[in-house]
């Protein structure tokens, strides 16, 4: 649009030079924007490493929270996180897989399955704090579960269920139709086909999605605050109905304190949380790679 103004004065060759320079400038700019995210990630990780490393020790894992930063530890939060994640996995794996099987194998592409799928994608966009409010009203108060691990896990199950369902759907869809038809040809019923042919083939993909969903659950703070509130716990849960706290809540608690020492303690806890999540992600990636290599053979 600039060219009619400049046009008559410039030869084609000169204009081409301008256009090429513009192209090169754009390339540098676009590469630069891509690096913004990466550079921030590097700064964030470095910041946490430098702040948190001096505070990491064996005591940090075995101590309960304390008024003194040197004695503060994440024992209650770590156990609470493991309890919550384990219960969530137990609840959301069967429900998520069953939903995916129903949607992929038992309904045809009709209005009903459209409603289910639209609903699931809308649920994935609901802010996590809203799930916290749902859990607070239904599980904590109406079902009288109190501020327990179980109430937290139920809430988290509903939150990550869309992730589990969608990844299970993709894994099931990737199983070739020929496998199903082969099973039917041998006289298998629908469920026999699903259980013996489809699910074993889709299992690695389903597990990958579930592990990623658990990693997300471990990092979520907002809905857990609505359920567990900010408590000062000096015990670890021994039953699903005990009170609990999780790592992100503990981190939030420490971050909110003005003294600089607490920022260091928070950074150390963030380091533990990130390593935990990184481990889960790595497990998911390894699983996916192993499965991919096998299917290529």
């Amino acid at each position, binding site marked *: 649009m600039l060219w009619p103004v400049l046009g008559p004065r410039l030869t084609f060759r000169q204009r081409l030079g301008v256009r090429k320079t513009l192209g090169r400038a754009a390339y540098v700019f*676009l590469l630069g924007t891509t690096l913004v995210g*990466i550079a921030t990630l590097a700064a964030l990780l470095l910041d946490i490493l430098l702040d948190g490393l001096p505070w990491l020790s064996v005591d940090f894992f075995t101590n309960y929270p304390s008024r003194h930063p040197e004695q503060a530890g994440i024992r209650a939060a770590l156990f609470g996180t493991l309890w919550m994640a384990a219960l969530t996995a137990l609840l959301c794996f069967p429900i998520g897989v*069953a939903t995916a099987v129903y949607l992929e194998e038992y309904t045809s592409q009709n209005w009903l399955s459209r409603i289910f799928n639209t609903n699931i994608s809308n649920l994935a966009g*609901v802010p996590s704090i809203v799930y916290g409010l749902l859990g607070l009203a239904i599980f904590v108060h109406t079902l009288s579960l109190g501020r327990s691990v179980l109430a937290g896990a139920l809430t988290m199950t509903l939150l990550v*269920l869309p992730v589990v369902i969608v990844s299970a759907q993709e894994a099931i869809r990737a199983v070739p139709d020929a496998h199903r038809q082969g099973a039917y040809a041998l006289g298998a019923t629908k469920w026999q086909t699903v259980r013996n042919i489809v699910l074993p083939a889709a299992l690695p993909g389903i597990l990958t999605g579930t592990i990623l969903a658990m990693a*997300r659950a471990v990092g979520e703070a907002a809905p857990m605050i609505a359920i567990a509130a900010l408590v000062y716990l000096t015990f670890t849960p021994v039953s699903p109905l005990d009170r609990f706290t999780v790592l992100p809540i503990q981190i939030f608690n420490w*971050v909110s304190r003005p003294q600089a020492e607490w920022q260091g303690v928070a950074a150390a806890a963030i380091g533990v949380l990130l390593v935990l999540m990184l481990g889960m992600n790595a497990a998911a990636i390894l699983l996916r790679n192993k499965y991919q290599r096998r299917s290529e053979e």
Partner: protein
Amino acid sequence: MATVWALKRRTTRRNEQIIFLVLFLSAMVSILTTVGIIYVLVSESLGFFQQVSLWDFLMGSQWTPLFQPQHFGVLPLVGGTLLVTGLSALVALPVGLGSAVYLSEYAPERARRVLKPLLEVLAGVPTVVYGYFALTFVTPLLQRYLFHDMIVFNALSAGLVMGIMIIPLVAALSEDAMVAVPRSLREGAYALGATKFEVVSKVVVPSALSGVVAAFILGLSRAIGETMLVTIAAGATPRLTLDPRESIQAMTAYIVQVSLGETPHGTLVYHSIFAVGLTLFVMTLGMNILGQWVVHRWRARY
């Protein structure tokens, strides 16, 4: 023999029916979740709206629920959320679109294989960690080099970090839209003598526009619903302002503030978090539906 077969077939058929029922009930969990969310938000809000009129709630410009005299005008909370969201858009829209263009059009395969997973890591960082980063890294940086007298809790650093946080989402969705643009369109433009950047800026991005706009809308919807980052870094001062250096309170941050205190069940303040939650839910749902509509309505078919 025949009777055994028939018997077996009958039990098999009954088992199949039971299985079908179990699967269907599992699928209903997600429907019930939606119903539950709407039911809880509306019914708990009713207790709030019996004491505060809807008009005062939506139009009031003072939000002072925790001290006397109580005012329940939601505008300062909505304003705080939109201020942070607007700031995040300033970062996330250009950077997200730029990253998407680079990854889809320019990046060599080897660079893509490194950069894409790194962006995914950025998307997987817990939001409480972003809050820590905004509070202990970005705010001091801004105070030292740009705004020397800025207070610790401010909308600016929360907004900037929020922008970084939603880059991966905006970039991934925009890139998907650009990858879907057929090669023939690019080759047609090259055949007319266009440079690479002209192909990208005048053919690829306009062709993918509906997907890019949807990516923007969904990214901003995520920013509106984000909780821990604004709670940690943006403050707890409900205030209608356009000055990003001020301390504000976002809708989500208010819900957390009340949740922390174990407010007694059934009080007006308890009900108020559901009224704010309902407002938040309606805003994000509206934007998500808008995003899906944009994709459907304006998707170019090749």
